[in-house]
């Protein structure tokens, strides 16, 4: 295949996941503006971070007036799975030149990872043009929807009347539920939940995130280590 048809085929592969992420791009844009970010700052997040779940986490923390280092640490925590992706995707993109590898890593999102491994397993080869096509569909639509959401979000005066306050906790709950097959999931979630509620009710808002998270992570380190398992 020529690089043009490869690129188009990549765009097609990226379109379905890009469309299913579109509502969250809008949600992110609207929530970010509602939390007091400007449209420029909101777009800058989508243009430079380009990791939906972590952008929503970051914007939520902006609202809690959490320390800057904790915002960055939390965004990294949510994005930590990318470390596993970049290790696991190497067989498929090993033949890329270094600049192409560095570009590919910037575009490495959940759907990009999934589509790339799917194609690598089916055809045994992933071209840079195809990879770029998938990435262009995801990156393009994500940023367009961010802008749409941010524009509409500016007109929302009472988020509670529109039920917007419930969307983010449920979205995060979806992510939490998605990890339920991991080792020690139940005790980690229980301890994090309890720790964060206690911290929220006693020392107050910014600290519930770090207290709850550290409690859960510490518990995971203390519990007897299990056999090595496939990371999800």
């Amino acid at each position, binding site marked *: 295949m020529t690089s043009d048809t490869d690129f188009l085929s990549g765009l097609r592969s990226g379109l379905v996941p890009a469309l*299913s992420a579109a*509502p*969250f791009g809008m949600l992110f844009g609207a929530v970010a503006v509602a*939390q*007091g970010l400007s449209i420029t*700052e909101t777009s800058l*997040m989508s243009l*430079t*971070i380009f990791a939906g779940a*972590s952008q929503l986490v*970051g914007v*939520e923390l*902006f609202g809690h*007036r959490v320390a*800057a280092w904790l915002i960055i640490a939390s965004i*990294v*925590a*949510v*994005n*930590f*799975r*990318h*470390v596993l*992706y*970049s*290790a696991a995707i*190497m067989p498929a993109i090993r033949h890329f030149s270094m600049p192409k590898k560095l570009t590919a*890593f910037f575009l*490495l999102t959940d759907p990009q990872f999934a589509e790339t491994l799917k194609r690598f397993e089916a055809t045994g080869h992933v071209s840079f043009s195809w990879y770029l096509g998938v990435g262009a569909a995801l990156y393009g639509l994500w940023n367009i929807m961010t802008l749409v959401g941010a524009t509409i979000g500016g007109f929302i005066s009472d988020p509670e009347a529109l039920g917007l306050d*419930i*969307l983010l*906790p*449920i*979205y*995060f*709950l*979806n992510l*939490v539920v998605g*990890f339920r097959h*991991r*080792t020690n999931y139940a005790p*980690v*979630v229980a301890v*994090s*939940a309890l*720790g*964060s509620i206690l911290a929220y009710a006693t020392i107050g808002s910014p600290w519930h*995130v770090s207290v*709850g*998270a*550290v409690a*859960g*992570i510490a*518990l*995971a*380190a203390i*519990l007897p*280590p*299990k056999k*090595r398992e496939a990371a999800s």
Partner: protein
Amino acid sequence: MSDFTNEHMMLVILGAAIATYLTRIGGYLLLSVVSDIPPRAEAALNAIPAAVLTTLVAPAFYATGWEGKLAIAAALLVGLRYKSPLPMIAVGWVIVMVCRRFIIG
């Protein structure tokens, strides 16, 4: 509203962007340096996403009204059945809106 100054906010965003990029090349860099991670460190790393994200759900559940608690609980049940976030959000949002429009309001 946030009390970040404009410049401060930009720095946080760019810091987060650089940190995110580092996670995206992290596995590649790590593979070329380390061959084995200690099991307890791996267990701790493995627990980070669920532990952090739980702290964004549990206090929200605690702080919201009964209609929010109902919505989050219903969404959890839906989430155990469907992987996509959309059905969870749809169910939770409808419950909150119906309660607020017709019962509370």
